[in-house]
C-alpha cells in the first residue's frame, strides 16, 4: 500500500510547485495566494521502488476553521491521518510561516519542514541554520528549491524514512500562560472523562480549538454531546471574561501571542541571521513603492490593462485573418467536393462555419493568455488585488474577493468556474455569496470570441480601447451588483482583510509558454469537443423539421414560373439572379420554420426591445450551454440562410453587410452577453458552492433580467440619439 504524504503550508509557499515537481502533474501555479482551494492527489515512486500518494492541500495560515480551504486542510490531516506531512515554508518569511508549523506540532502529525525559496532568502541577506532548527523543533528540516527540484531527493528520502518509522503522533505542548493553561487542563480532563470526540481528536488540541473559537469544532461538539459542549463553552466564557477584565484581551489573541513567542525563542537560538539591516528595503518593496502608490498605482494599473489589450489585438490580427482564410478555403473546397444534402450542410454550416468561428480566435486567446501569464508570474496580479481591495471595501466586498474576480476574467480571458471556487478563501458566508453571485459578470475567455467578433466588425478602429472600457464596465457593474446584494438580501458586517504580497519574480520564458499553452489548449479542446457537439445539435435544430410540402411546392412553382418567363425575353444573368433570390427566400423560410427558428421567432416578441432578431435569440439561448456557442450559432444561422456558394465570407463580413446589424445593435448585444445568465457549468458550481440550487437559479434570473434592462437602455438610447443608422 503506498504511503500518503500531505503537502501543507501557507498560501503561496510553493506547495503546488513542489506537487508538480514530484508528481509530474501540471496543476496551475500562480504567484499569488489562494491558487489551490481543494486538495489534489498525485503519485510518486521513490528510487527504491516504494510508492507514495502526494496530496496537495490548500494553503492555510492556521488550523482553526475560518474559511473553507482551512477546513479542507484541517479535516484531511485529522481524519485521513497521512503518514507524513511535508510543511512547505517560505524561507524568506520564516517566522510567519512557522506559525502554522507550530500548529502542526501541536496536532502531533509526523512532519518534515521544507525550507522553500532559500534563494530568495539569501538574496534578502537571510542565513538559515536548518540543522539547528531541526534540533530545536525535533523534526527534520530540509532546504529546497521547489521550482528547480533542488533538495527534493533529500526531502523525499527523509519523508520515506519518517513514514517507515511509523511513530505515533506526538503533540507539542506550548504554555499559553497560567490562565489559559489552567483552562486547557480542566477542559482536557473533562473531555477525557466523557470520551468527548476523543476518537478523532486529542483532548488538549480539542480544548485549544474551543478556546480559539473554532466554529466547526464547536458545532460538531454540540451535535456529539450537548452537555459536555455546554460545560466546555462555560469554561471558555469564564476564561474569556477573566482575560478581558485583567488584560483587555481574549483567549485567541493570547494563544497567538504565545505561539509567536515560542517561535521567536526558537529562531533567536542562532537559527536565523540577517546580513543586512532588517529595515532595508528589498527590491520588491522598492518596486511596490511606485506600483502600489496611492495615486500612481491605479494609473499604472489602467495603463497595463490598456497595453495588454493593445498588444493582444495588434499582434493577433494577422494570424486570426490567416485562420479565417483557411476555414473559408476549407468550406469552399468541401462545398464543391461533397454532394448536396444534409451531410454537406452539417459539415459546412454546422462544423466549419460554426466551430470554425470559435477556433479562428485561437491566436487572440493565445496572445491574451501570454500577457496575463506575464502579469501573474511576475507577481503584479497580486498588486492589482491589493490596490483593488480599497475599492472593494466601499462596495461591501472582502479583499479576498478581488482574486476571485480576476480569475473569473477581471482581465478578459479568465473563467468563472475557478473564480467561484476561489471565493472559498472568504470567511464570511455573506461576503462569499455576494462574490459567488457577481464573479460571472467578468469577461471570461468564453465571452472573448463574442466580444472580439463584434468589436472587430463594428468598432475595428478602436478595438483595444473598447475592450478596455468593457473591462471597466464589467468591474463597475459587478461591484454595483455586489453592493446592491450587500445592502439587501446579503446584508451584514464586513470582515477585515490582510493581503499578503508575494515578492516580484522574473517570469521564465518556459513558464510563460507553459501557462499560455495550458490555457490555449483548454480553449481548443473545449471548441473541439463540447462546442462542436453543441454546434451540431444547434445545426440540427436549425435544419429540422424543414419546410412543409405545400411551401416546398410553392417555391418550386416560383422557380418554374421564373424559368418560363425568362425563355421569352429576359437574359440568362437576370434568370440566375431571380433563381438565387428564390433560393435565399426558401432557405430563410426553412430556417424560420425549423425548431430553433420557431423558438427564436417566438422570443422576438420581447427581444425587439434590445434590438435582437430571431437569429441572435437562438444564439443567446445556445450561449447558456457555453458562451462561445453564440459565435458558432450565428455562424451556422447565417451560413444556412446563405445560398450563394461564392458569397462565403467570414461571419464578421456577413454581419457587417446585414442591414439588421449596426454598431448600436452590436453594443447592445455586447452588453447583454457580458451580463446575462452565467453558463451552465458556472450555475452548477454556484449552486454547489452555495449549497443550494436557489442561488444558481437566482444568478440566472437576476443576471438575465439585469442584462436585458441594460441592453434595452443601450439600444433604445442609441436609437433615440440617432446612432442606429
Amino acid at each position: 500500500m503506498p504511503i500518503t504524504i500531505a503537502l501543507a503550508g501557507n498560501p503561496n509557499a510553493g506547495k503546488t510547485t513542489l506537487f508538480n515537481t514530484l508528481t509530474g502533474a501540471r496543476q496551475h501555479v500562480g504567484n499569488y495566494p489562494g491558487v489551490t482551494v481543494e486538495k489534489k492527489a498525485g503519485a510518486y515512486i521513490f528510487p527504491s521502488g516504494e510508492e507514495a500518494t502526494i496530496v496537495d492541500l490548500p494553503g492555510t495560515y492556521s488550523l482553526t476553521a475560518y474559511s473553507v480551504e482551512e477546513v479542507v486542510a484541517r479535516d484531511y490531516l485529522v481524519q485521513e491521518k497521512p503518514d507524513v506531512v511535508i510543511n512547505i515554508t517560505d524561507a524568506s518569511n520564516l517566522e510567519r510561516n512557522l506559525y502554522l508549523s507550530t500548529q502542526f506540532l501541536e496536532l502531533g502529525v509526523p512532519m518534515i519542514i521544507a525550507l522553500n525559496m532559500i534563494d530568495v532568502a539569501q538574496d534578502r541577506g537571510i542565513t538559515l541554520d536548518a540543522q539547528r532548527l531541526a534540533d530545536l523543533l525535533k523534526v527534520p528540516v530540509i532546504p529546497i528549491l521547489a521550482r528547480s527540484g533542488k533538495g527534493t531527493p533529500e526531502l523525499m528520502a527523509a519523508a520515506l524514512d519518517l513514514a517507515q518509522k511509523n511513530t505515533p503522533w506526538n503533540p507539542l505542548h506550548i504554555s499559553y500562560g497560567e490562565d489559559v493553561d489552567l483552562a486547557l487542563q480542566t477542559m482536557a480532563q473533562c473531555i477525557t472523562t466523557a470520551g468527548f470526540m476523543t476518537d478523532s481528536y486529542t483532548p488538549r488540541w480539542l480544548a485549544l480549538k474551543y478556546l480559539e473559537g473554532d466554529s466547526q469544532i464547536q458545532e460538531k461538539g454540540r451535535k456529539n454531546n450537548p452537555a459536555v459542549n455546554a460545560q466546555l463553552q462555560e469554561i471558555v466564557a469564564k476564561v474569556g471574561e477573566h482575560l478581558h477584565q485583567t488584560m483587555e484581551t481574549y483567549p485567541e489573541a493570547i494563544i497567538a501571542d504565545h505561539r509567536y513567542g515560542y517561535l521567536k525563542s526558537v529562531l533567536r537560538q542562532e537559527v536565523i541571521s540577517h546580513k543586512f539591516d532588517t529595515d532595508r528595503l528589498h527590491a520588491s518593496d522598492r518596486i511596490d513603492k511606485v506600483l502600489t502608490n496611492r495615486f500612481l498605482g491605479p494609473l499604472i494599473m489602467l495603463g497595463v490593462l490598456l497595453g495588454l489589450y493593445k498588444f493582444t489585438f495588434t499582434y493577433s490580427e494577422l494570424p486570426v485573418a490567416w485562420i479565417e482564410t483557411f476555414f473559408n478555403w476549407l468550406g469552399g473546397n468541401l462545398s464543391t467536393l461533397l454532394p448536396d444534402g444534409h451531410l454537406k450542410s452539417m459539415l459546412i454550416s454546422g462544423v466549419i462555419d460554426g466551430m470554425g468561428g470559435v477556433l479562428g480566435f485561437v491566436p487572440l486567446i493565445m496572445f491574451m493568455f501570454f500577457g496575463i501569464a506575464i502579469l501573474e508570474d511576475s507577481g503584479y496580479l497580486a498588486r492589482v488585488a491589493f490596490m483593488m481591495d480599497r475599492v472593494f471595501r466601499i462596495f461591501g466586498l472582502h479583499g479576498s474577493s478581488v482574486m476571485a474576480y480576476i480569475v473569473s476574467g477581471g482581465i478578459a480571458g479568465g473563467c468563472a468556474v475557478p473564480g467561484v471556487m476561489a471565493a472559498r478563501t472568504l470567511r464570511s458566508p455573506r461576503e462569499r455569496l455576494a462574490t459567488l453571485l457577481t464573479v460571472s459578470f467578468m469577461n471570461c475567455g468564453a465571452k472573448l470570441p463574442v466580444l472580439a467578433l463584434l468589436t472587430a466588425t463594428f468598432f475595428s478602429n478602436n478595438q483595444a480601447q473598447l475592450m478596455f472600457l468593457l473591462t471597466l464596465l464589467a468591474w463597475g457593474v459587478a461591484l454595483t451588483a455586489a453592493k446592491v446584494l450587500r445592502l439587501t438580501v446579503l446584508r451584514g458586517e464586513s470582515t477585515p482583510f490582510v493581503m499578503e504580497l508575494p515578492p516580484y519574480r522574473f517570469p521564465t520564458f518556459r513558464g510563460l509558454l507553459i501557462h499560455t499553452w495550458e490555457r490555449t489548449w483548454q480553449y481548443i479542446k473545449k471548441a473541439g469537443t463540447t462546442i462542436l457537439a453543441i454546434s451540431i445539435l444547434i445545426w440540427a435544430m436549425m435544419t429540422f423539421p424543414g419546410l412543409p410540402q405545400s411551401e416546398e411546392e410553392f417555391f418550386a412553382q416560383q422557380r418554374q414560373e421564373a424559368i418560363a418567363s425568362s425563355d421569352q425575353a429576359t437574359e440568362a444573368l437576370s434568370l440566375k439572379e431571380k433563381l438565387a433570390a428564390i433560393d435565399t427566400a426558401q432557405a430563410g423560410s426553412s430556417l424560420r420554420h425549423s425548431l430553433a427558428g420557431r423558438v427564436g421567432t417566438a422570443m422576438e416578441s420581447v427581444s425587439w426591445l434590445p434590438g435582437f432578431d430571431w437569429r441572435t435569440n437562438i444564439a443567446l439561448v445556445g450561449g447558456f450551454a457555453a458562451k462561445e456557442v453564440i459565435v458558432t450559432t450565428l455562424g451556422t444561422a447565417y451560413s444556412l440562410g446563405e445560398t450563394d456558394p461564392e458569397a462565403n465570407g467570414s461571419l464578421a463580413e456577413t454581419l457587417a453587410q446585414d442591414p439588421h446589424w449596426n454598431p448600436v445593435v452590436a453594443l447592445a448585444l455586447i452588453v447583454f452577453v457580458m451580463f446575462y445568465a452565467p453558463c451552465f457549468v458556472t450555475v452548477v458550481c454556484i449552486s454547489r458552492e452555495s449549497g443550494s440550487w436557489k442561488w444558481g437559479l437566482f444568478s440566472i434570473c437576476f443576471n438575465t433580467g439585469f442584462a436585458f434592462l441594460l441592453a434595452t437602455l443601450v439600444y433604445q438610447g442609441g436609437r433615440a440619439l440617432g446612432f442606429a443608422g
Partner: protein
Amino acid sequence: MWQNILILLIIAACMFFLGRRIRRQLGGSKTGCGCSCSGCDNPSAKTKNCETKTTQPLH
C-alpha cells in the same frame, strides 16, 4: 438515405456526449471537478483525482 442515417448517428453521439458531461457536472464531478468550464485545467496521467469538498449551505 445513408446521409440521413449518418446524420442521425452523429446527432445521437453528440447528445450522448453532452448528456454525459451534464450528468457528471450535476453528479458532483468525480473526474472533472469543475476546475474550469472545460473540466480540470491540468489533466495528467499521474494526477489521480481532484476532490471537491461538499460545502454547508450559506443560507
